[in-house]
């Protein structure tokens, strides 16, 4: 991609960010990333359509003046206003809804999803969809559709209660369709899933180009999330069918997909995305905000930074540390980061594991630190043990601080680290311990890796690069030029001052 500076000055693009459960109503990785984009581009006017929980969430980010409007679209909250349609529009909606449901449960009818979704979008714009889905006609259609012979869902013996549950879940999931879609500029969905719905409506109705950024893979997370949900099979089949076909439609309709790592492409291409319309844009950090961390700690220390959460698999890290300590009795493990609400039990489990392995004295939970740089400086080697990641900020921050890292081979980790750290399989304490010992025993290699890591960040993963890339993409899409599939050519790295990115 070539960035047209002249074009940038000529036309101020307008961008509508489409978010779900993140910016500007909550903290966390994706919200930080949104804030970086918005504050980094004062030359672009932003609107935000934010899918929220109840609609009562307060704004937690200071919105700069060039953010014009934030529309909160609650998925739960009070029942939306509106009346069910009558007459012809009722028959049209019933037909569209039957086609929609059939596409969800019949593998041979998936082509019907997109036109049916547009039919639902038109009803939603007239405030008719939600009342329709809360009525009996919608339930009758579902019970008729999923008991058709030959369908897998019929074998699962769906009940009327399942129909009610599935319809209610769909009614809530489809509420973002009722939000007024952007009429011009670029619609930028910062995740897949229901946040994209207004973008799909904008594309269909006004031809607004859709940009889709995926840090994680929304669909994959839905599949994993619903495994533990207490729904019967027919409910899961319908709801997950909706998320799958929504993902496919989003991938097909997006003018450009910008995954946060190359690994996500696998799902996007499988889902029908045109490979030439996928362009990886990595997260970036500010190398000045994360300068070289200075001398290593006196005792050999493994440090870790992040949220104390099962997805970070601290148990494997603690088990690995136990193996390290068998070889290096003076070693320590320091874990930096807060425990989110509801995560206390997991933390206690980790502490119990450390005690059970006989290393309670050497494993410390340091809690939240004011400056996350201290967490990286505290480690001889910085560890990442997650079982799922997009393109982790903690990793590129540690790299920017010039520390060698041992991390698990998930998401975009391998792309971030390159050969400036060691990458091991997830959930494998022995491999992780071996890698940590390898680095602890080789100070020169460690130092070389740390220096290379910082250089790699400066060359490839700076915040400025991320922002300039998206600015270029916005102008490109707004001008209607087809995105070029060629490798992104990035402008020279530049340094600006901002705070920590780990939120």
């Amino acid at each position, binding site marked *: 991609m070539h960035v047209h500076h002249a074009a940038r000055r000529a036309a101020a693009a307008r961008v509508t960010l489409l978010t779900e459960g993140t910016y500007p109503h909550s903290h966390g990785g994706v919200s930080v990333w949104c804030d970086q984009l918005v504050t980094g581009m004062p030359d672009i006017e932003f609107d935000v359509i934010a899918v929220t929980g109840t609609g009562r969430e307060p704004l937690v980010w200071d919105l700069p003046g060039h953010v014009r409007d934030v529309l909160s679209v609650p998925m739960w909250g009070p029942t939306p206003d509106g009346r069910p349609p009558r007459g012809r529009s009722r028959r049209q909606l019933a037909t569209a809804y039957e086609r929609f449901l059939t596409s969800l449960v019949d593998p041979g009818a998936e082509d019907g999803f997109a036109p049916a979704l547009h039919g639902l979008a038109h009803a939603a714009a007239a405030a008719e969809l939600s009342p329709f889905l809360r009525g009996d006609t919608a339930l009758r259609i579902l019970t008729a559709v999923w*008991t058709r012979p030959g369908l897998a869902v019929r074998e699962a013996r769906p009940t009327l209660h399942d129909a009610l549950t599935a319809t209610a879940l769909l009614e809530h999931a489809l509420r973002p369709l009722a939000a007024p879609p952007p009429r011009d500029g670029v619609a930028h969905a910062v995740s897949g899933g229901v946040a994209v719905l207004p973008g799909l409506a904008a594309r269909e109705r006004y031809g607004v180009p859709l940009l889709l950024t995926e840090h994680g893979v929304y669909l994959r997370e839905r599949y*994993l999330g619903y495994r533990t949900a207490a729904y019967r099979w027919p409910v899961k089949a319908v709801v997950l069918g909706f998320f*799958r076909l929504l993902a496919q439609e989003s991938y097909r309709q997006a003018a450009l997909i910008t995954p946060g790592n190359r690994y996500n492409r696998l799902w996007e291409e499988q889902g029908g995305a045109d490979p030439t319309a996928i362009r990886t844009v990595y997260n970036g950090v500010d190398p000045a905000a994360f300068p070289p961390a200075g001398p290593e700690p006196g005792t050999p220390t493994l440090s870790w930074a992040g949220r104390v959460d099962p997805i970070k698999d601290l148990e494997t890290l603690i088990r690995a540390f136990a193996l390290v300590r068998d070889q290096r009795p003076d070693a320590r493990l320091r874990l930096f980061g807060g425990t989110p609400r509801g995560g206390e039990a997991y933390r206690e489990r980790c502490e119990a594991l450390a005690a059970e392995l006989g290393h309670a004295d050497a494993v410390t939970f340091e809690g939240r630190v004011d400056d996350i740089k201290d967490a990286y400086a505290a480690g001889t080697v910085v560890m990442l043990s997650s079982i799922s990641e997009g393109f982790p900020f903690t990793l590129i921050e540690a790299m920017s601080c010039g520390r060698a890292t041992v991390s698990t081979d998930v998401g975009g980790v391998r792309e971030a680290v390159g050969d400036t750290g060691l990458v091991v399989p997830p959930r494998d304490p022995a491999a992780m311990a071996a890698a940590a010992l390898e680095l602890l025993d080789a100070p020169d290699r460690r130092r070389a890796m740390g220096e290379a890591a910082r250089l790699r960040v400066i060359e490839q993963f700076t915040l400025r690069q991320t922002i300039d890339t998206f600015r270029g993409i916005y102008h490109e899409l707004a001008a209607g030029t087809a995105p070029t599939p060629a490798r992104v050519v990035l402008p020279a790295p530049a340094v600006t001052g901002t705070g920590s990115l780990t939120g």
Partner: protein
Amino acid sequence: MSGPLSLEPGDGHDTLALRLATPRPPRRRPRWALDDETLAIRLPGQGPDEEAVSTLAAELADAIGPAVHPYEVAALLEAEGLSASVIKERYGHPNLFSLATALYERVPRTFPEPPPAPDPWRPDTLRCLLRGVLFALPALVHLLTAPLWPLTRYAPVLIVAGITSWAWGQALGHRAHLRLVTGRREASGTLLTGSLLGAATATALALIPGPDTLALAVAAGQSLYLAAAGVLLVLAREKLLLAALSPLVAGAAVLPWWEPGPLARAGLPLLALLATLAAAGHVLWRGRTGPPAAHAPRTPVRASLPYGLFGLAAAVLVVLTGRQEPYAVIALTLSMGPAEWLLYRYRGWSVAALRTSATPGGFLLRSAGVLTGCLAAYLLLLLPAALLTGTDPATPLLLAATLWTALLLQAFGTAWPPALICLTAAGTAGAVTALDLPPAPVVLPAVCAAAALCLAVCALRLLGRPSPHA
């Protein structure tokens, strides 16, 4: 909360895919994770290793069986840490999705039932019974104070004030429940102004026959009590109300053995009234000190109007019944506790019926059964009471059926039909009785039967459909 919203209300913060609520049981390590040097690395281009794939399918059968799509298996394999190189080298599949599809097709679908969900409509039996008792307890005042004043002279005043308080209380209760959704502080504010206004109105109506200090005093006492008790009942402080009424209970309890004297006969009810007022004041004061809600959507007053009209109609019907069968009214009041319990059961049993029905038609049949069962249970409870007190059971039972079915419709947010049906019934019965028209003796059972029938048809039509039970 950050990231994708859960499609589960009240669960917004829990958005991570792999949140593990309980420690995982020790897991068999999948074969790819074992350090098995005997498994030769496969060369590309050889095609899938069917045996290795089958072994993997067998190992993961429990997890793959319930999957809804091959993608779910792919997500699972990724979460288990299966890397692209292992997929190629050990299983001979070109990519994750190819292996996932092979596994999905190899394992037969299973449809495991989720653990039984707790009944969201499980009634609090003790509380329901207590509420019934609390509705009836104030009647003890008449036992205690009967010798002190000519009750019959003031009965019209008390009845007019009582009917007004009842109607007002129903509307206010509905409004307060709506406001409780916004916040306790907001609900307390509504209850404070609403109950004061209601008590003042009811008292003022007692002045219509002419200024009479004693009439004004008893009307004010009754209205204030009903307002305060209404506050405590709406805010679910039943035990506090019971404690406040304890002087009354104690006084009435000793009557068979001991004459307390006029001072105690007047003083104990007054003490109970003051205690109830103090309790309601305290509860409202505590509620007002809470933090204000960020968003306080106002619902129009007319939304509560049908509830008030229903209260008016119900009060008139009860008063008319009480003229004929005074004991039946006491039994009816006490039965309001079991009636509430049955309202909860109706909802719980309806959900159970949804779980066993496959089609709307099947549900309608079961719903009719649930309605009949609940009504029959309620009336069977009242029948012995009517027979014991030697009253004609027809009128009280038909009135009970009318009131319960109306309350059922109200519980599902259907307010106007029961209000209009009951108003028509009360208006007809009231007019015929007042004008002493020929059908006067049978008008009450007749209108109650008609109303009960209309309401039952309404309930079947409206609640025999699945959508109100969402």
